[in-house]
C-alpha cells in the first residue's frame, strides 16, 4: 500500500512530466528570431530555491490573512 508521501511524490512527478510535454509542444512551434544569448539558463538552482521560498511565504501570509474556514479551493 503506497504511503501518502509516495502518492504525493508520484502525483507531483506525473504533473511535472505533463508540464514538460506541454512546454515542449508550445515552444517547438515558435518562429521567433534566433538569439542564442536569450535562451541561456539564467536561474541557478540556488535562485530557484530562493524564488520558491518567496512564493511559499507569500502564499502562507495570504492564507493567514484569509478568514478562518476559507480554503484555497473556495
Amino acid at each position: 500500500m503506497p504511503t501518502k508521501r509516495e502518492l504525493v511524490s508520484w502525483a507531483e512527478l506525473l504533473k511535472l512530466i505533463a508540464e514538460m510535454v506541454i512546454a515542449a509542444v508550445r515552444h517547438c512551434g515558435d518562429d521567433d528570431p534566433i538569439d542564442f544569448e536569450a535562451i541561456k539558463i539564467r536561474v541557478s538552482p540556488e535562485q530557484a530555491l530562493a524564488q520558491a521560498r518567496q512564493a511559499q511565504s507569500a502564499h502562507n501570509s495570504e492564507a493567514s490573512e484569509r478568514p478562518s474556514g476559507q480554503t484555497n479551493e473556495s
Partner: protein
Amino acid sequence: MNPRRGHIHRLGSLLLVSCLWLSACDNFERDAYRTLKVLKVEYELLQAHAAHAFLAGRLSEAQWEAFVVTGHRFIAAHTLAADLMQTYREVKRIKDPNRRNEIARQAAAALAELPTLLDDLRRLLESFETH
C-alpha cells in the same frame, strides 16, 4: 523494476523523444535554437519542482545538494552549446568551410549531450522522491 517506476521511465523517454522529434525542422541553426529553448523550459520546470519538493520536505538537504551539482552541470553544458551555436553563426559569415564544419561538429556534440543530462536529472529527482 517497480512497475510504477517503469511507467515513469517510459513517459520520460517518450518526453525526450517527442522533444527531439518536435524540434526537428528546416535547418541546423533553427533546430539547435528550438532544442535549446525547449530544454531550457524543461530544465527550469524540473528545477522549480525540485526546489518545491525540498521545501515541502520530500527531498533532504543532501539530495537537494546532489540536485544542485547536477543542475549546474546541465546549465554549463546548455550554455556551452548556446555559445558554440553563437560562434557557428559568426564563423558562417567569414566563409571558412573548415572552421564552420569544426564548430558545427562541436555544437552538434554539445547539443546531443543535453537530453541525456536532463534525463539524468529527472531520474535523480525521481529516485529521491520515491525512496
